[in-house]
C-alpha cells in the first residue's frame, strides 16, 4: 500500500446527506472495480474506507453519506483541499524501487467482471450503487450487457441513476415508499423487470444482499462492509467468518462469492 496526497476537485451534495467527491493527484490512477481507498480526515484518528465509484486517469470519484462527525467534516472541505489517501500499490514493485510514475491502485480485492458470460445484473442498495458504476464501465468495455437494479428508501436518496443511464445501462428503481419505480425491495424490482443475466453483483445493506442471494440462483458476488482498523490487512479488525474460514473484509474482500458469505 502507499499514502498519496489527492486534492479535492469537487465535493457536492447529490442527494439527501449524500456527496459526490472528485479527487485528483499527480500520478496515474488504476483502481479496479470494487476496490476502496482509506481517507485520512483531519482531526479524526482512523481513516474512512470509501469504495471507488469511478476511476479517472489521475483521480477517483467517491460517493459518501454523512453518517457521523467524520463524514460531516469531510462534507465541509472545499475544492482545493488536500486529502491523504491510503491506496494500493502495484504488488510487483518492491517498495524501495517504486517511483511516482507507478500507478496508484485501490485497496482490497474487487469484483470479477471477467467471470460474467454475456449478461450482468448489478444490484445496489443506497450508496451500494457507487462501486457498481465502475463495474458497469468495465463490463461494458468487455462487451457484456449490463442491467442495474437500484434500491433506495425514498426518492430524495436516489443517486447515480443518471450516470448509469448515460452509459446505456437500463436502470430499474425500487423505493420503499413507492415514490419512484417499484414499491418495495430490489428483489421486487428484479421480479417485475425479469432481466436476463448469467451473473449478478451486489453491494448494499446486508439484509438486502442476503435476500438477493436467496432469490437469485445465478452465480453472484457480494461486496461486504465492516468497520475497519488499518484497512490494509494487518490489524484483523474487520474479520468475518466465511465458508472458507476467517477472512479480512479489507484485504481478502471486500468482494466475496455469494457462497462464501455466512448470513
Amino acid at each position, binding site marked *: 500500500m502507499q499514502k498519496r496526497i489527492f486534492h479535492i476537485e469537487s465535493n457536492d451534495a447529490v442527494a439527501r446527506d449524500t456527496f459526490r467527491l472528485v479527487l485528483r493527484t499527480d500520478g496515474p490512477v488504476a483502481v479496479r472495480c470494487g476496490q476502496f481507498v482509506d481517507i485520512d480526515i483531519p482531526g479524526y484518528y*482512523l481513516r474512512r474506507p470509501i469504495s471507488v465509484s469511478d476511476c479517472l486517469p489521475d483521480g477517483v470519484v467517491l460517493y459518501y453519506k454523512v453518517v457521523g462527525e467524520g463524514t460531516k467534516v469531510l462534507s465541509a472541505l472545499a475544492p482545493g483541499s488536500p486529502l491523504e489517501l*491510503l491506496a494500493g500499490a502495484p504488488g510487483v514493485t518492491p517498495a524501495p524501487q517504486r517511483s511516482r510514475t507507478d500507478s496508484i491502485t485501490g485497496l482490497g480485492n474487487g469484483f470479477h467482471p471477467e467471470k460474467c458470460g454475456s449478461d450482468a445484473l448489478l444490484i445496489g442498495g443506497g450508496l451500494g450503487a457507487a462501486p457498481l458504476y465502475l463495474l458497469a464501465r468495465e463490463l461494458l468495455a468487455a462487451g457484456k450487457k449490463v442491467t442495474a437494479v437500484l434500491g433506495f428508501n425514498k426518492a430524495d436518496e436516489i443517486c447515480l441513476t443518471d450516470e448509469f443511464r448515460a452509459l446505456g445501462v437500463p436502470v430499474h428503481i425500487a423505493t420503499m415508499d413507492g415514490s419512484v419505480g417499484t414499491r418495495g425491495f430490489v428483489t421486487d424490482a428484479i421480479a417485475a423487470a425479469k432481466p436476463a443475466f448469467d451473473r449478478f453483483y451486489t453491494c448494499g445493506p446486508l439484509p438486502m444482499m442476503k435476500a438477493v442471494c436467496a432469490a437469485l440462483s445465478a452465480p453472484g458476488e457480494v461486496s461486504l462492509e465492516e468497520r475497519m482498523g488499518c484497512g490494509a490487512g494487518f490489524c484483523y*479488525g474487520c474479520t468475518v467468518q466465511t465458508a472458507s474460514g476467517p477472512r479480512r473484509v479489507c484485504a481478502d474482500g471486500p468482494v466475496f462469492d455469494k457462497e462464501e458469505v455466512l448470513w
Partner: protein
Amino acid sequence: MVTKDLSVSLCGLQLANPVVPASGTFGFGLELADSFDLNVLGGISLKGTTREARFGNPTPRIAECTAGMINSVGLQNPGIEVLVGEKAPALRRVYRGAIIANISGFSVEEYAYNCGRADACPDIDLIEVNVSCPNVHAGGMAFGTDPASAASVTKAVREVVRNKPVFIKLSPNVTDIVSIAKACENAGADGITLINTLLGMRIDIHKRKPVIANKMGGFSGPAVFPLALRMVYQVAHACSIPVMGCGGVRRAEDVIEMMMAGATAVQVGAENLRNPMACPEIVAALPALMDSLGINSLQEIIGTV
C-alpha cells in the same frame, strides 16, 4: 551531522534501532512487506498467538475515539504451530531484525507449552508473554492483574524457555504496576513490555448500544502516551531488567521520551493502524532529532531522567 548510533542492546540482542511495531498492530510482518523495507525496523512483535487457532470476537471489533481507538479483535490467530512452522520462518526469509513472538494463553500450562514451542523455533529471537488474557481457572481474571498469578506464568515460562529472552507484557489495568513488574522480575523475567491497552468502551448514542460487539475493548493511541510513559518510568526505576516501552507512541520525539523514561526499545502500536508507514517514518526522523538534541547514541539516553 555526526553519524548517529541508533542501535540498542536488548538482553544480548543487538537491535539496529529501538523501533518495534507492537503486537497486534502489524500482523505477522509479511502483510506490510510490499509497503516498505521491513529491515528498517529494529524488531517486529508478531500477532498474539494461542495454542489453538482462534477466530476472535464478532465485529464490530474497532471503535474510533478522540486521539485513539478501541479494539476487541479477541486474539484472532492461526495457532502456535502455524506461528512457528509458517509465519516466523516466512518473515525470517525477508527480515534480519529481531522477531518477537507474542504468546498468549488461558492457563499457566498453555503459556508454558506455547513458549516452549516458540523457544524451539530458530526464527524467533525473543518471547513476549501477554499476561492480559483471562485465566479460565480463576474466574476469568487476567493473569497480569495480580502479582502472584503474573509471577506463576513467568516462572512456568522461564522453566521451559532455555535459549531466548522472556519479556512479560503487562496490563495497565491494575492498581500497582510496580508490584506486578517486580513479581515478574523476581520470577525470572528477562524484561518487561508495558503497557498493553486500557479497558475502554464507546456507546453509539443513535443505536443506544455499545459500538464494539463485545461491548468493551482495549483503548490505545496518542491519548494514553502520558500514562504509558509514567508506568515505564516507574517500572524502569524499580526493576533492573530492561523495559520495552509501549503506548501512544506516534513520532520520533515520543521514542526519545520513552527512552529517557527508561525504555531500551520502544513499541509503536495503534499508530500503525492510522499510518502504516509510521515506523519507517519514525526511524527516518530519529537522526535529525538526535542531532537537534545533542544525542549521538540512543543507548546513552536510556533512563537518564
